């Protein structure tokens, strides 16, 4: 079950994301906002889950932490991402090169297309090991072997010379984790790292991520829409909806004492809680489309506890409703009774 012990005594904050706004500049005057007011911390040694439906902006937030928003023609319009005295929201490409790969590792979404298909596993790992650093070929090779060993790949000397298509999905994802570890980063970003893998392999990968966290005291940011998975491996949780963070807290807190109607609805819709023979519980309506956000709370149109004051003004900000537990619901205090 969840290892919530880490959050009992809040540890060092590694990354501080404040009021982050991400969007696409379509024309000079026309901005399409994808994420606004993302607001959370990443602490050292924790596994932080980032959950939300498609289009909630979780991938964009993840990309802003690795500096590849431009590839998706998106830009940061405001806010700060403080990391080790730097504001990642503002640094230039040259500074990014010393951060991405080196301080922040990245595990891609799909095990199938994550590794480069035309390079051997060894070649790719050596590339990751040498990333912006001067290391001899032999040194890099030795380190690559170490990395393969670290992610429990048997016979690394064979795998070293193989191409990704010769490996199973699980192995490929192990290799990608090894590549992300190459520079001993402080943080590993894993954007739905188990997409397309079957459940047993998925569990293995998650176990590996936890092991790595413990061994190197790294932080892991796990983007997912699988709540069961998040429950199992994460310490803290950020729930996103309609481009904003709606609830932040420890997994235990959020699961047992949710303070936002969206989280309540998510919890209720979990498939493992369904009673056989009854209809599955869903959240009514669709997630609000990008650019079609309602005024006030963006969940108001789907919320069963909605009141008139929910629909006016700007999207409500995150407020600390309990110690280390934030919610963006203006009626968070009344929810406890209502959700029973």
């Amino acid at each position: 079950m969840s290892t919530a012990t880490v959050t009992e005594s809040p540890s060092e904050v590694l990354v501080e994301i404040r009021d982050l706004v991400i969007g696409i500049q379509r024309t000079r005057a026309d901005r399409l906002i994808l994420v606004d007011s993302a607001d959370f911390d990443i602490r050292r040694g924790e596994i932080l889950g980032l959950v939300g439906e498609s289009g909630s902006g979780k991938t964009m937030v993840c990309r802003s932490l690795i500096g590849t928003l431009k590839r998706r023609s998106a830009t940061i319009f405001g806010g700060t991402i403080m990391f080790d005295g730097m504001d990642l929201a503002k640094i230039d490409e040259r500074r990014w090169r010393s951060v991405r790969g080196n301080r922040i590792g990245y595990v891609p979404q799909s095990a199938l297309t994550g590794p480069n298909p035309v390079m051997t596993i060894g070649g790719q790992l050596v590339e990751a090991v040498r990333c912006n650093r001067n290391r001899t070929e032999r040194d890099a090779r030795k380190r690559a072997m170490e990395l393969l060993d670290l992610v429990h790949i048997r016979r690394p000397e064979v795998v070293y010379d193989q191409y990704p298509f010769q490996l199973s999905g699980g192995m490929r994802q192990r290799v990608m984790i090894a590549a992300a570890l190459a520079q001993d980063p402080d943080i590993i970003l894993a954007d739905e790292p188990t997409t397309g893998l079957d459940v047993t392999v998925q569990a293995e990968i998650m176990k590996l991520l936890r092991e790595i966290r413990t061994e190197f005291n790294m932080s892991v940011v796990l983007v997912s829409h699988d709540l069961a998975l998040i429950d199992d491996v994460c310490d803290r949780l950020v729930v996103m909806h309609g481009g904003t963070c709606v609830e932040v807290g420890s997994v235990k807190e959020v699961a047992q004492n949710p303070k936002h109607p969206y989280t309540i609805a998510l919890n209720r819709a979990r498939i493992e809680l369904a009673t056989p023979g009854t209809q599955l519980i869903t959240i009514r309506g669709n997630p609000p489309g990008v650019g079609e956000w309602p005024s006030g709370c963006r969940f108001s149109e789907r919320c069963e506890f909605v009141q008139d004051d929910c629909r006016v003004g700007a999207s409500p900000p995150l407020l600390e409703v309990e110690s280390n537990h934030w919610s963006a619901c203006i009626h968070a205090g009344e929810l406890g009774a209502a959700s029973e």
Partner: protein
Amino acid sequence: MMFGFEKGTTQVSLSMPPADVTDIAADSTQAGPRPQPIWERILRRTGRAVIVAFWVMVVAFMLIRLAPGDPVSAALGGEASPETVAALRTQLGLDVDPITQFWKYLWAFTQGDLGSSLLSGVPVTEMLKTNLPVTLWLIAITVTMTMIVSIPLAVFIALVRIPALPYVFRTLTAIGLALPSFLVALLLLYQFGLIWGIAPIFGYEPGFPANLHYLWLPALVNCVVLVPVLSRVLYSSILDTLDEEFVETGVIRGVKSYRFFWFYVLRPSLAPTVVLLSYMMGVMVGSTVILESIFALPGIGRELVTAVSMRDYPVVQGIILVFGVLVVFLSLLGDIVASLLDPRVKLT
């Protein structure tokens, strides 16, 4: 996908035995099977090429005999006396049944003899020795020119993000595709040869740098058809590649730009283009017949036209055999290059 090129069709752990979740070393840590060495696959393909060549021989032999008329009537006309006809038939070895003729032909072939022209008496092998290089050079120059134009063009259109450019590109390539090559040949010959006088209208000179002068225009005609096809395929496969996640991984690793361009952009995109080019070259072998006639090049294509109209059986059979082998060889070459570029391409 087309042409046996399987991009990303990989089965992920479907054949996996049910594993205990706690057993971390179950499957995702095991190395996969080693692939066959490349020479073994090349050998198998060559073996298949030999079989194809045999059937090309059979078909060429039968087809030309199914055509109305024969070399005797073509040479003597309808007025000759039956005795003369019979004598000539015996002399040419056409008085026995076709099956026996074929076995004779096959036996001679194993001795390296393709027979001699019924009209001039020149051995077919001699004829190929002088005429085949012209055709091979035409193909080689066409491939080179096509690659030199298509690759930079496709890369440019895909990487330089000018909004209107892809539309212009698609329109122009569609026009290029729609033009019949004999028309292009005549128009270019008229413009370059007659009006500007920068290309010879006919003639040929053997030997590499010298023949370039006579071959660049016919090769250009081929390019008008080939470049649109290839640059379009390469363009869309570069776009596909750029969308893939490993490109992002490369960005994150800070791969140097020239390495990035080769390993993360061009090389993963090239395989379909190379395979397609080799198949298109097979088609082009056929079109050399038209081009060599229009440009009066002494290649085997033009020789074939004459031989067919004169029912010169050994020459027709010899040239069709060469064409068949050429097509098989080109597609083998394309597959080998593609699989060297992209290990996902299987040589089957």
